[in-house]
């Protein structure tokens, strides 16, 4: 079916993370028609899986709440979750986009009461915990999920568990027969806010992420620190559940490395500095953080935060790219390398190692139209016909603040396209 709601005056925003929501809302609050699609079951994207933001140590969900309220109060934005772009044809001002909507097996009758989750027994890896925890196969992605509607995992369709969910729902929201849908829409412009994904840490072989339980990624560490996370906010070692008090942070894990990502991922230095404060939050003076770095890139007034952390007696810095990690008999990761400020060799054991993994464009995993212009790392520069734009971390490794700026700018670029189309059309 072709969707009548969208027209050449419609702005399609792909990706419902903070950048996509921002681009959509900023355009909508200028009175434009926007279609916001998200691949996952909820809006919010990666930032909703972070515990705190640097440098204010505030919570991502705080801004998400405001954006969701803007969204609820604004009828110019049409939100579609579990939806992906299959193809884009046409040109600036007149694109025909084919969308694929995956079945949620729960319709909009859902009141979020949770009866289905109670009834279902099967568990799956929680996709919103980086697999660190399990969740029922009928689940609400997270407390701030939007739409606040449950999802039934495809794995229990045609199983007794599926039937249990169906039976448990008093409002007829469970629809096990739901099928994948294909929708074709006409839009004037497309904003790709497809965000980023963590670089596959297993590829950084010397660090043994695939071999050592106590080597984890910075994103997994966010989940450990989050009271809503798998450990209830305790910094527990995966190997033995013991509290990790002496934690190493390895910078440029995949970034600034021609064997992995050519670019600097910008956020990792601040992210690790932030995470050293999680350690302080957990243990006070009894915690210990060591940051292994090449250059600390805390630019502009973020420098204040670096200075603050430098004054923290529980945090020390080693100017060194760690050469390799080996595991000792107690499963402690032992870091080997040389502090290059004056040549000091070290072999230091830590309870836990956090790899500050780099940012890779999520779009690397998405089939973009051939017309898109990408840089050497796959970040979006724009489109040849200047009718499609990148926004946020899809355009460059950006922190939240800069992503929102970028998304706001992208909203105006999109508005320019529909304005021109409208004025040409008469």
């Amino acid at each position, binding site marked *: 079916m072709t969707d009548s709601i969208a027209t050449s005056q419609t702005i399609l925003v792909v990706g419902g993370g903070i950048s996509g929501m921002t681009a959509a809302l900023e355009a909508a609050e200028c009175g434009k028609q926007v279609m916001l699609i998200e691949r996952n079951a909820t809006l919010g994207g990666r930032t909703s899986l972070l515990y705190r933001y640097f440098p204010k140590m505030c919570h991502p969900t705080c801004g998400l709440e405001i954006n969701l309220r803007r969204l609820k109060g604004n009828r110019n934005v049409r939100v579609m979750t579990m939806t992906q772009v299959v193809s884009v044809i046409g040109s600036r001002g007149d694109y025909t986009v084919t969308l694929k909507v995956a079945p949620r097996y729960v319709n909009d009758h859902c009141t979020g009461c949770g009866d289905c989750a109670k009834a279902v027994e099967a568990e799956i890896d929680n996709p919103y915990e980086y697999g660190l925890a399990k969740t029922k196969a009928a689940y609400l992605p997270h407390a701030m999920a939007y739409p606040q509607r449950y999802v039934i995992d495809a794995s229990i369709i045609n199983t007794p568990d599926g039937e249990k969910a169906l039976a448990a729902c008093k409002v007829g929201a469970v629809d096990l027969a739901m099928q994948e849908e294909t929708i074709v829409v006409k839009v004037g412009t497309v904003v790709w806010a497809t965000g980023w994904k963590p670089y596959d840490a297993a590829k950084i*072989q*010397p660090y*043994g992420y695939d*071999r050592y339980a106590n080597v984890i990624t910075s994103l997994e560490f966010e989940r450990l620190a989050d009271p809503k996370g798998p450990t209830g906010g305790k910094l527990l070692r995966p190997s033995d559940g013991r509290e990790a008090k002496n934690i190493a942070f390895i910078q440029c894990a995949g970034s600034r490395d021609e064997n992995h990502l050519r670019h600097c991922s910008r956020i990792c230095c601040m992210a690790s500095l932030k995470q050293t404060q999680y350690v302080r939050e957990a243990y006070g003076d009894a915690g210990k953080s060591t940051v292994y770095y090449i250059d600390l890139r805390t630019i502009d007034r973020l420098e204040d935060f670096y200075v603050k952390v430098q004054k923290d007696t529980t945090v020390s810095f080693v100017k060194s790219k760690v050469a*390799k990690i*080996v*595991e000792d008999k107690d499963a402690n990761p032992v870091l080997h390398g040389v502090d290059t400020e004056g040549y000091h060799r070290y072999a230091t054991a830590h309870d836990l190692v956090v790899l500050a993994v780099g940012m890779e464009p999520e779009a690397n995993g998405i089939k973009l139209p051939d017309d898109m212009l990408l840089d050497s790392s796959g970040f979006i520069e724009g489109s040849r016909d200047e009718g499609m734009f990148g926004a946020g971390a899809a355009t460059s490794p950006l922190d939240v603040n800069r992503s929102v700026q970028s998304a706001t700018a992208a909203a105006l670029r999109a508005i320019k396209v529909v304005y021109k189309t409208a004025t040409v059309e008469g």
Partner: protein
Amino acid sequence: MAKKNYAFYPGCSSQKGASGSNFATSIGVMCDKLEIQLNEIPDWNCCGASIGYGEGGELPRLALNARNLALSAQHLPGQDMVSGCPACWLATRETAERLNEHSDLMAETNVALKEAGLTFKGGVKARHIVEVLIEDVGFAGMKAPVVKPLQGMKIAGYVGCQTNRPFGIAGESFENPLYLDKMIETVGAEAVSSFDQKVTCCGGALAFSEPEKSQKQIRDIVESAYDHGAEMIVTPCQLCQANVEIYQAEINKKHGTKLAMPVVYYSQLMSVAYGGTLKQAGLDGHLIQPNRLQEIAGK
């Protein structure tokens, strides 16, 4: 099935009566069973090895290896040039690649080659026998001829450096390659997968000049093999084999240790598993006797 033909570059250590001669012996049965035909390159010369650089410099080393490549191209056209010695393979492949990339080096090298009445135009692919086994034969192919599975043997797969870096085996990691363990398992033995010295350098290149340093490396490797319950070390590298086997006695003398860990080649495992005799497997050529393997071979 027709035999696959390869130009063969044995290297100095695999000559009759040389330190790697038992390797040379052991690949006989292996190649035979796997339908691999190795055609020795006539009048091949030394590759310059790991320490050739000190005196040899750049161009003379390139010339040495170019000569072998040229001979291979001339006498065994169309055949990949295969070596069993990592150092030989590395030096040859490096030369082949560098000459391809730098036309000036190619020209200068040919000026030198002319003195030996040869020319080289590139186009020869330098490979390691292990590559041939994995890529051309495959693990299933290696398993097929097994008649005497090495049941119950716990073996530490020691890859070492140069088979693994800088080129390594396609698709394998530099830090934790798995192919040698897989080969051990294809012949029915158990690989000590937790062996953490898998790719540690044995210091072979400095065995003579820096004995203490190199012997420390060897000690770590052998002791880790013991710690992880291995009864034997297997390696694809001649220098590693000789070095790790020969110096255990020396280390024992110096440090009062009781190291006696047999060190054999993967080819010896295969040759035994394929039904080769103790002699055919070159198992008569060890300072530290790999008894269990010898027993199986004897049966």
